[in-house]
Every structure is written in structure tokens, then in C-alpha cells.
């Protein structure tokens, strides 16, 4: 009850503060338009933001251990998050600065007008790409290599159960988590990228084809897609993967290839819908009519006239779809039908290490292990979307 009362009091103080803030602003600036036309909601937003900022600083400065000698894990995780955010921002800023002075005139110009979020996204994607490509050279141990010590905590501090040889610790059977994270980039990201490209190739070309030709082909394709979309995608994927796991053994083809195909086909239905909708808006333009009257073939129409104009929405979808595919693979692996052990995969790692999260309250360094793989997934998802947002903004010619 008292906590409810506290919240009510805080809300009342904030609401009053908003009114005072706006009133004071109007008086001090002699009714400048910013304060004069400021809505009450906007004023409340400013005050709330200020209050949150003050709280964040206060919370950051709380001691790591309570008086009773207990770990204050919340503060620890909050500090890590804030530090990570600041480091990311500085890295993004430095990367953008670097891009402004190195490279061709074109790329330098690109970097000059780039928002910080986009430069962060590009930086992260570049790092992931490097890590994925050179995983074998970077990783200190093999992904399936079982080392001496199991359950070593992250941080490398022997006092807390760490070991400097395994900076991010080892899992239950003693495999190095850092190495597995690095190989996981290769497996998970590489496969997700291939799958997304395939989904776009299938969905995009069929969608444009349906939009250009229309008639019975459009009906046939659209209705088939409707049928596929009517089945919940994860359950459908699970079902097909179960069937494929039998075929994979019979045919001697790796299950991963089946997984790529299955996810690509399922996801291509969404791409098809988008490509068809965008394509239908483009095929009615006069320049398509002009090209048709010139006698151009279907290939030219689809790839040279329609595709460049559909690029912006498709790119946006690519960013989203990549993340979805990525998460589907992680989910399938988590459920045990995706990337098969002993291959490292972020989804599997989250599943395997999940019990450690229970230690969060008293041993933050131990609990961080499953979060590392989950964080790797989240970071890439955010980065890809930052870059896609920026590309969209640029290509759509939106100003401000």
C-alpha cells in the first residue's frame, strides 16, 4: 500500500513540476513560442525525462554491496549497461570520424551526413562480419573442444571463480564460451544471412512477377502464399524440420541445408506479399507503360524498371526479416531441431546456459554467461535496424 502511495505522490510532484516548468519558462523567456505553444503533455515529458535522468545518475552511484554485505546485482547490471552504452557511443563517434577522413570522396561524404546510430550499426555489422569470417583465426579454442575446467565464471578473476585463460568462462562441460560465441557468429549469422537472401530472391522475384503479369499466375501464387501464411510459422517450421531430420539421414545431406530452405520458403511468403504490393504500385506508372510499349522483355521490366524503385521498402523489410530469420534459427536451435551440436550456435548457447540466470541476485558475473549469447543476438538485431533505417531515410529522400 505504501508503495502505491509513494507512486501517487511522485506522479503528483511530476504533474505539478510540469506546470511550474512551463509557467516559469513562459515568464523567463518572455513568452517565446517554444514555451507559449507547449502542450501540457510535452511539459510533462520534459519534467519526466529530467526526473529519470536524475534517478539514473543516483542509481549509478549506489554502492555495489549493500550494508549487509549482499551483492547489489541491479546496480552492477545497470553500470554495465551504462558503460556499454557510453563505450558504444564513443566507438560509433570515433568510427564516423575515421570514416570522414579515410576512404574515397564518396564514402567520406557519406560519413559526414551519417547519424551516430547508423555509424554504430555499420561498426557492429563490420565487427560481426570480421569475427564470422575469421572465426578460426580469432577464437582461442575450438568450438567443440572440451577443456579442463567446467563452469568457470566470466571475468577471469580467480577470487570469483574465474580463470584468466577463459575470459568469458566455460560452460557446463568445459567448452570456452568466448570461442563458442565467435564460432556462433559464423554459424548463426552466416546461415541467417544466406537464408534471408534466399527468401528475398524467391519472394521478391515471384512477387514482382505476379505484379507485372497479374491474371491467373498472380491468383495461383497469391493463394498458395495465403495457404502457407495461414499456418503459424514457427510450428510449421518445427513440423517440417522434424520431417527433414529423417530425410537428412536418409539422403546424407546436412540438416542445416534443409533448415535454410525451410525457413527461406516460409519467410519468402512475407517478402512475396510486400514485393507484390509495392510492385503493383509501380507497374501502373507511365514509365513502365513506356517500357512495355518499347517491347521490353519481362526480365528487363522486373529487374531494371521495377526493382530499383522497390529497393527502399525491400531494404527495410530485409533488415526486419534478417532479424526474424535469425531469431527463428535461434528459436529452432533452442528447441533442439536447428543447428546441431557440437556446432556452436547462439540460440543453443542461451538454452544450455539458461540455468545460470538464477545466480543473478548474488553472483552477477556468473549470471552473465547466458546473457552474452542473447546480447550478441540483440546487438546485431539493433545494429542491422539502425543501418536499414538510415538507408531508408536516405533513399526515400525524406528531409529532416
Amino acid at each position, binding site marked *: 500500500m505504501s508503495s502505491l502511495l509513494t507512486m501517487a505522490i511522485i506522479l503528483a510532484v511530476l504533474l505539478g513540476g510540469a506546470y511550474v516548468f512551463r509557467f516559469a519558462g513562459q515568464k523567463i523567456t518572455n513568452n517565446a513560442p517554444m514555451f507559449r505553444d507547449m502542450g501540457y503533455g510535452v511539459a510533462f515529458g520534459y519534467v519526466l525525462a529530467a526526473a529519470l535522468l536524475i534517478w539514473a545518475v543516483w542509481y549509478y552511484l549506489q554502492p555495489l554491496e549493500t550494508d549487509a554485505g549482499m551483492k547489489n546485482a541491479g546496480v552492477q547490471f545497470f553500470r554495465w549497461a551504462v558503460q556499454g552504452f557510453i563505450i558504444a557511443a564513443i566507438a560509433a563517434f570515433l568510427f564516423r570520424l575515421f570514416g570522414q577522413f579515410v576512404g574515397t570522396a564518396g564514402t567520406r561524404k557519406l560519413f559526414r551526413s551519417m547519424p551516430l546510430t547508423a555509424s554504430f550499426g555499420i561498426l557492429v555489422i563490420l565487427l560481426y562480419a570480421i569475427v564470422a569470417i575469421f572465426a578460426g583465426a580469432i577464437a582461442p579454442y575450438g568450438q567443440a573442444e572440451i577443456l579442463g575446467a567446467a563452469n568457470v565464471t566470466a571475468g577471469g578473476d580467480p577470487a570469483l571463480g574465474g580463470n584468466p585463460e577463459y575470459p568469458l568462462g566455460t560452460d557446463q562441460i568445459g567448452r570456452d564460451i568466448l570461442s563458442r560465441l565467435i564460432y556462433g557468429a559464423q554459424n548463426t549469422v552466416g546461415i541467417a544471412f544466406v537464408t534471408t537472401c534466399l527468401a528475398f530472391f524467391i519472394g521478391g522475384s515471384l512477387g514482382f512477377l505476379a505484379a507485372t503479369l497479374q491474371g491467373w499466375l498472380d491468383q495461383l501464387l497469391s493463394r498458395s502464399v495465403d495457404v502457407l501464411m495461414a499456418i503459424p510459422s514457427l510450428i510449421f517450421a518445427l513440423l517440417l524440420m522434424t520431417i527433414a531430420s529423417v530425410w537428412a539421414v536418409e539422403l546424407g545431406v546436412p540438416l542445416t541445408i534443409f533448415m535454410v530452405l525451410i525457413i527461406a520458403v516460409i519467410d519468402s511468403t512475407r517478402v512475396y506479399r510486400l514485393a507484390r504490393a509495392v510492385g503493383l504500385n509501380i507497374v501502373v506508372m507511365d514509365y513502365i507503360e513506356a517500357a512495355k510499349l518499347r517491347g521490353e522483355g519481362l526480365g528487363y521490366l522486373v529487374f531494371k524498371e521495377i526493382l530499383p524503385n522497390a529497393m527502399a521498402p525491400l531494404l527495410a523489410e530485409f533488415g526486419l526479416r534478417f532479424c526474424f530469420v535469425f531469431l527463428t534459427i535461434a528459436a529452432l536451435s533452442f528447441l533442439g531441431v536447428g543447428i546441431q551440436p557440437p556446432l556452436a550456435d547462439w540460440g543453443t548457447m542461451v538454452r544450455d546456459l539458461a540455468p545460470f540466470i538464477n545466480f543473478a541476485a548474488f553472483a552477477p558475473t556468473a549470471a552473465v554467461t547466458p546473457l552474452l549469447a542473447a546480447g550478441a543476438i540483440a546487438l546485431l538485431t539493433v545494429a542491422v535496424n539502425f543501418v536499414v533505417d538510415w538507408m531508408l531515410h536516405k533513399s526515400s529522400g525524406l*528531409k529532416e
Partner: protein
Amino acid sequence: MSNLLTIRGLKIEGRSDETWNPIINGVDLNLKKGEVLGLIGESGAGKSTIGLAAMGYTRDGVRISEGTVEFDGIDLVRASAAVKRGLLGKRIAYVAQSAAASFNPAHKLIDQHTEAPVQHGVDNRASSVEDGIELYRKLRLPNPDEIGFRYPHQVSGGQLQRAMTAMAMSCRPDLIIFDEPTTALDVTTQIEVLASIREIVEEFDTAAIYITHDLAVVAQMADTIKVLLRGDEVEEADTRTMLSSPKEDYTKSLWAVRAFERPAKPAVSTGAVPVVSVRNVTAAYGTTDVLHDVSFDMHAGRTVAVVGESGSGKSTTARCITGLLPPRIGEIAFDGEVLPADYRKRSKDQLRQAQMIYQMADTALNPRKTIGQIIGRPVQFYGGLTGSARRARVNELLEQIELEPSQYFNRLPSELSGGQKQRIGIARALAAEPKFIICDEVTSALDQLVAEGILRLLGELQDKLGLSYMFITHDLATVKAIADEVVVMKDGKVIEQGPKLDMFTPPHHAYTDLLLSSVPEMDPDWLTNLLQERGVDNIGDAAVDKM
């Protein structure tokens, strides 16, 4: 009498490429109660921006940087949002160019009409509905008692524009801003809207700013005219003085555009094979016939203007000729040879011979391709030229349309002006080396000076290359300027056809006569005289309906 609206030293800036660029460079404006001011200028002159600024409003990304806009003693630039809310809609109203796009399609006209008076507390709903019907009657809308209870899509464009004027009048404002209210309308529809607007503005003694690019229209509507050019005032004078003796060169050039006319060509020798002949074409969309037994010939080196209002079947005829819409009955012959009805069955050479230039250059040029690619494609596709030969041919074509090749080759369509885009459309058609070009309303989206340049260019190209044009237009001034033969269409039928001189000298078919008489003239008394001569019920759509 003091001014109702006083604008002093108005400067407006627009944001692009991260900087603020001037749009209006210090314009003054005075408007007394009951006075109508015409603002004219080409696109980009800042007419609409000033019109909106007169309401203390700017579009997104645009700001008023200096100056005052004083409406009845209130400076709208510095007024708070609350003060402006009290004025807009109530004392200042706005009539947009496209009523079809400005009405909310989800609400009935009368509901939108009553919104402002009810919101402003001027009137209650019931009496506002009555007032609306009264206004509809005054504006001579058909069925005034029930038209308000329709949705916007159930009402024609000209009627919507009048309903919008009625809506602006609903609070009896002191000032109305008309932003090109008749630009999107046919001539016969336009004349009705003009007559209604003028009448109602006079009746309620409302001040108005009338924005248009059409001199003849502004001559009918305005007491004084202000000419703008790229954000600067060129000159201002009362309408009669301005029309009879403009001072500035720019104004004179605007006036002179209307005088452009190509010399008449000798008659076609009998027995000559027409380049394209449309023979008894009847065509249908779905099961409804939209063309009925259309026949006419087009000869080498000549221009046939196909005239008619929207929906008369001009563009459908063009679609039949190009093969996009195979006719149900009848055939298209090229050089005496019958063409396959469907464009997909025509040979590459047959397709090459007939090219098309579109009305909207914006949608006719692929926005993701450079000018070099756009023009280069037909050069390569038909001529088989690649590499430097292709480049040379494209340069040659760019020179033909009077654009500097090195400067434009790598640009995108979005980096060109409207007139330049239309020139690229012409170059793309020429690249195929055709005999015959269909020009579908190629100048209707352009400013008059630019349009004249395009017409001159087309004329020169015709003389040089012996091209035949089928020129689809609703603008009779354009017809006068360039046509050799005229075909008048209405409701999918050819009403009248013949050499230009015959068409412009009486006696005409009744419809041609109505069409000709509806074209506004530069004489400020033209509308008054016409209304006296014919009576209010015998102009515009009302007269068309009687036929």
C-alpha cells in the same frame, strides 16, 4: 478604409540540405475589405506560400523568418496557436486546389461543412445545415437540398470545388484564400466555378486572395493583380492597367505567350496515305463501350489535335493506337498497313515507329535512372548502339532538346525542372526515331512560358524530322498554337473534325461552340459579358447536360 490584411517585408525560408534557403524575399501586400487580389506567377514563385502565410501558417520545413502578417490588427506571425485557432476557419478560410483531395472521403459534405461553424460556436448544427443548403443553392449546385448528404466521391470535381467554396463561406469569413481552385477542372466546368465564386464573394463582400497561374482567369476574378517571380514581387497594379500596359519585361513575356502560333500548313494532297489512320474504332473497358466508331487520319509532318474534356475518350483513343487497349471493333493502320490490335503482337519496328510523350513527366521517367540511361535505353534497344556510339547518340538527342549533354547526362529526373523533364520525355521518344508521336497533354502540367518552349521545340522537331503528332489536349489555346487538323471528341464520339481554320471559324457544332466560348479571355469583362449573353444556366456543365 483601413486594410483588412497587411503584409510587410515578409521573408520565408525553406529547409533543404541542412540549410535554410529563402523562398520569399520580402513581399508587401495590402488587402481591403471586399477586395480581390490576384497573385500570379509560375510554379516556384511562392504564390501558395504567401497565400498560406496570410493565414499565419507555413508548411512543414518552412518558416517565416522576418516580416509581419497583420490581419485586422493581429500579427499572425507572433500570435499564439490559441489565437490563430480562433481566427482560422472562422474569419480566414482557405480553398485548396484539389477539392477532391482536400475533403475527407469518410464524411458527408454537409458534416464537413458544419464542422467549422459548430466548432467555432458561430452556429448550431441544425441552422448550419440549413445555411449550407442555402449556400449550395446560391452556388447553383444541382439538387442543393440533397447534394450535401453525399460523400465526396459521389460528387463531380467541379461540384466539389463549389462545395468547398461553400464550406469556406460557412462562417462568413472576412478573407478567403483561393489556391488555384479551378486549375484541375475542364474549361466548361471552370467557367461555372468562376461565376459562382465571383458571385458569392461579391454578395458577402468578402476579401479574397486568388492564386492562379492563368492570366485570363485572374483577369475575371481580381480587382488588383500582383505578379511574382521566384519569391519577389515583379509588379502590382489594378487589373485593367496590368492587362493593357504591363511595365516589366517579365510580365510582358507572360502576356506574349498567348500570341504564339505556328503558321498553317498547306492542305494534304488527296490520295496521300496517312501515317496513322484510326478506322471505325469502338473500344470498351470491361463491357462498357467508351469509344464509339471513332475514325480519323493523321498525315506525315502534320499535327492533329484531339480536343475534348476529361472522359471524352481522347486518351483511350491513344491507348487503342498504341495497342494497350485492343479495340473491340475497328482497326489501326500504319502507313496503310493494318497493325495487330495488341501491342504484344506488334513487331519491334512497329513499336518503334509510334512513340508516346506523357502528361506527367514525373511518372513517365523512372526516378532511379539517370538521364543518360533513360534516353540511352531506346537507342540501344532499337538502334543496337552501345558504348561510345550510344553515348554520342544520346548527346546528340540532348542537344536536339536544347539541354547541355555534359551537364545533364548523369542527373536523375528529380534533379530537373518540370519543363526539363518533359524535354527528356521528348528525347526518349525521339531516340526511337519514330514517324509518329502521341503527345498526351504534354504541356498541361507546365507553366505557360515553359509550355510555350516545349511547343516551339516540338514544332521545330516536326519541321526538321517530318514527324506526325497526335496532340491530345483540353486546352484550346494550345490547339490554336500548333494544330493543323482538329478532332473534337465528346463521350467517346468524334463530334467534329477538320482543318484548324475551319474549326475556329463559325459555324460550329453546338458543343465546339460551347467549348470555344468557355475558354477565358484576357478581357476583364469577358465573364460578365458571357454571363449576360448566355445567361447563368447556359454555361458550363449545365449547358453540356442540355445537349
